[in-house]
């Protein structure tokens, strides 16, 4: 094969060929934030919203002497708990020339950049919720992430230790990681039993996508009812290898895969047992544009900013199976 000498090809290169650039910009980065989306939103009035947690006395034998004189037991005060608000911010600056030029798909225009930053700040919030992060007061406040609150209905690997809320410091303490192990139905059942005994009504099991892939294998357990699907008359068959709910000995829970929990092995190692009635986001400043941002330059800048915290009304209503392999069979 040969090309005739002086054939003018696209490799010359020609000066006048038009470039082709699609106006459709592909972005498959997931935008879902399951926990942040499922829990209620409340307003906050301070940088350290507090709430009270009360408990009932354990059941005890109760038989009294006839004609007995009354005695009066001391009333245990409620426990005050709180979480510091965290300021979250996303920003951008775009030159006025860049904003004026014809941009394929407009992906690098202010409107689109602003929309992306809005999604990103929600994902940052979700990450803060699922991270085992101790709360911090002061100027750069950090909200205590959900794993740092959980102490009652907890399963940990060897050498793991609880964190929890310290009423003395008014801060949460991060849990200490233990030796990782595989996520199993036994672990789920045992932690759900602990939660049920403590009075919790777990509705959701939230874990990384890998944890979901392990969860669906529970259907192969000998103690699980066989999963059958009627064949359709058109002769088409489906391999069914998924499940979204688990009807366990202690209630029915929905499994919610959380892509933000695949962010790192540090967050993927926890499987959270949640009741959305017990969690809420308390908002001191709504996530919104700061209208007063100016650049004093030939450009336009923007800032999305908000300040909020996670309210864990009663950690005993929740649970965690910690120290599991959350990204792969060995990580």
């Amino acid at each position, binding site marked *: 094969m040969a090309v005739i000498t002086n054939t003018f090809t696209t490799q010359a290169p020609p000066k006048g060929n038009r470039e082709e650039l699609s106006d459709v910009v592909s972005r498959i980065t997931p935008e879902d934030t399951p926990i942040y989306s499922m829990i209620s939103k409340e307003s906050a009035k301070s940088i350290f919203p507090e709430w009270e947690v009360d408990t009932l006395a354990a059941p005890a034998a109760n038989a009294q002497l006839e004609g007995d004189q009354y005695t009066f037991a001391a009333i245990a005060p409620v426990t005050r708990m709180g979480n510091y608000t965290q300021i979250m911010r996303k920003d951008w600056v775009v030159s006025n020339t860049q904003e004026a030029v014809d941009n394929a798909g407009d992906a690098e225009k202010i409107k689109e950049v602003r929309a992306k930053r809005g999604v990103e700040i929600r994902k940052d919030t979700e990450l803060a919720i699922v991270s085992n992060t101790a709360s911090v007061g002061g100027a750069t406040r950090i909200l205590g992430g959900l794993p740092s609150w959980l*102490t009652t209905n*907890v*399963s*940990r*690997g*060897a*050498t*793991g*230790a*609880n*964190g*929890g809320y310290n009423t003395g410091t008014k801060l949460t*303490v991060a849990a*200490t990681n*233990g*030796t990782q*192990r595989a996520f199993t139905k036994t672990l789920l059942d*045992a932690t759900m039993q602990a939660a049920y005994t403590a009075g919790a009504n777990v509705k959701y099991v939230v874990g990384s996508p890998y944890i979901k892939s392990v969860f669906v294998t529970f259907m192969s357990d000998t103690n699980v009812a066989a999963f059958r699907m009627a064949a359709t008359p058109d002769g088409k068959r489906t391999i069914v290898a998924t499940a979204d709910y688990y009807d366990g000995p202690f209630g029915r829970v929905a499994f919610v895969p959380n892509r933000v929990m695949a962010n790192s092995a540090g967050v993927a190692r926890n499987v959270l047992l949640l009741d959305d009635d017990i969690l809420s986001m308390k908002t001191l400043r709504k996530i919104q544009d700061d209208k007063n941002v100016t650049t004093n330059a030939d450009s336009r800048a923007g800032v999305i900013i908000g300040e909020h915290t996670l309210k864990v009304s009663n950690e005993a209503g929740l649970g965690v199976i910690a120290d599991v392999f959350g990204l792969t069979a060995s990580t």
Partner: protein
Amino acid sequence: MANDKPRLAPVKMLYAYWPAEDERVNAGEIIELPLEQAKALIAAGKAERADPMPGEE
């Protein structure tokens, strides 16, 4: 001859601890742990020394 037995130190747990999977030791309980493990937990603020004071033994 080297002594293969790990040295154990008594610590009082300030937070619940799992010396082994599914083996919960609640906050307030005293357990004996290998020295390095005990030191790590004390350094992390999760436990405090529970060995006798001089003259207590």
